[in-house]
């Protein structure tokens, strides 16, 4: 948090050259549930996300985008190689996935938006945020402001099942930002929503990002979404995955979804995807 600059419109000024997320020679293989064959998703894969930078990873399904995000979130461990967050090394090679005890990860506050909202259906929307806040050692009172920021103030005391799909995902975005994350991970955050709702949420996300710039990793199969939100777009391809193209988007924020330059980028990304 302390490292981020004040919000400036140009990405060049906001992004520091200091790396925040570093994947260094990471390898990961797993047994395919469908075929039962061992597949290498990453082999000696490296990637850097700098402080204050929002990097989008684009690729077809099955190229390991989500695995990449899970590795950074600590939900999966690499078979070999090193992953560091802000110079803290996450234990490599340890086979314990997810629920394990990773004290090294616990030092870093993450805000994660998954494809599905992943709210607890049996408590109110506000309680969902409060639980994340208190678990991060923050004042639960922040829940109301975070909900107001995404336009859900009046739904705070409702159960998530009362909300529409778009509202639920808004709540998930609110939760991710409420915990004052050092790193925001977005896993296909709007791909389960209809186009209009997805567009509104992208604008909301940009608004939140402009207000409080953070370091972020966005995984998406939507090149236009990547171009609209990211500072840098990385195209993943093949198995094991490799970076087949990389684009630095020199577009100031706020961006408009109709900006013709976005479509130029979209076409370039699509061409790189093959």
């Amino acid at each position, binding site marked *: 948090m302390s490292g981020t600059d004040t919000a400036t419109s140009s990405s060049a000024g906001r992004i520091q050259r200091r790396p925040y997320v570093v994947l260094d020679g990471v390898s990961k293989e797993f047994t395919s549930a469908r075929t039962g064959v061992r597949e290498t998703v990453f082999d000696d894969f490296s990637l850097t996300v700098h402080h204050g930078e929002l990097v989008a990873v684009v690729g077809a399904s099955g190229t390991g985008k989500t695995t990449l995000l899970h590795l950074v*979130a*600590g*939900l999966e461990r690499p078979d070999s190689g090193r992953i560091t967050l802000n110079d803290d090394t996450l234990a490599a090679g340890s086979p314990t996935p*997810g*629920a394990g005890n990773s004290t090294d990860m*616990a030092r870093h*506050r*993450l805000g*994660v938006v*998954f494809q*599905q909202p*992943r709210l*607890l*259906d*049996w*408590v109110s929307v506000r309680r969902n945020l409060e*639980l*994340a806040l*208190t*678990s*991060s050692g923050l004042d639960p009172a922040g829940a109301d402001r975070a909900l107001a920021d995404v336009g859900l103030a009046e739904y705070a005391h*409702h*159960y998530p*099942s*009362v909300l529409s*799909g778009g509202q639920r995902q808004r709540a998930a975005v609110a*939760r991710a930002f409420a*915990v004052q994350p050092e790193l925001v*991970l977005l896993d296909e955050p709007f791909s389960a929503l209809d186009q209009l709702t997805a567009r509104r949420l992208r604008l909301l996300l940009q608004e939140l990002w402009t207000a409080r710039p953070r370091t972020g990793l966005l995984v998406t199969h939507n090149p236009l979404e990547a171009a609209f939100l990211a500072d840098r777009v990385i195209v993943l391809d093949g198995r094991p995955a490799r970076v087949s193209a990389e684009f630095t988007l020199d577009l100031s924020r706020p961006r408009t979804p109709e900006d013709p330059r976005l479509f130029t980028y979209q076409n370039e990304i699509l061409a790189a995807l093959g």
Partner: protein
Amino acid sequence: MARPTTATAGIQPAAHSSSSTGSAPTAPAVSGRVPASRKQPSHRGRFLGRTVLPVAAFFAVLVGGWQLVAVRSDSVLIPDVPTIWSSLADTVTQPLFYSSLGATLLRVGLGFALAFVTAVVIGIVMGRVEFVRRFFEPAVLIGLTVPGLVWALLCVIWFGVSLTNPVVAVALSAAPALTLSIYQGTRAMDSELREMAYVYRFSLATQLRYLWLPSLLPALLSGARLGLSLSWKVIVLVEMFGMSSGVGYELNNQFAAQNVAGVLSWTLLFAVVMAVLEYGVLQGLERRLGRWRKVATV
């Protein structure tokens, strides 16, 4: 009961797939009640007509049919309805009934509690650890197929008239079904929510309270209902063979005296008590704790 829920029915919450499989045992019951509660002026009358009328008709046919057969056969082995009724009234007014019922319920309660605790521990670990699952799987499958009568006989032989006898017999007959139910609930638990709890650093206590308990609740409650229904079937057997008190023992006395009306009244009264526990208490609890499922429409 939950006030706001009765009038709202219409749309079910679009619960995501994995959690809806987790609540599979309760889901049909919930959706089955939906058409009954449309907002109409004659709502209540119609509701009664649909739900109470068939049940009342059943009992009318049962009682009427019984009386007809009893009168036609004119045998002491088929007492007529008034005889059964007076026997029922007799039984209910005896202190013996309450002490017997108390003894039986205590045994069921202890045995069921033992089964429940064991099943929760084994069921959850089975759901999480492959080795443990494979280890206990044969035990659960064998346990499910062994008739309650066998447990009753074995426990009478092993433990005699001590309290251990009925408690162990009840536990052995209820635990396999309960374990299976809790194991399945654990398996159906949403791994996506577990990931969410991990990335947001939920403590173990928070996870247990806000993730595990609500996720497993449908499995716990449906397992409890199933386990209870198995428990009270076996306790009667145990008390018949090996105890000197309790509902089963009294049933055996009536049987020895060839008192059909006595057998029937003890059976009916015990069935009523167990039905109240099963459908009244447990189902009520289930409905209350599952409120969040039904507030979908506003």
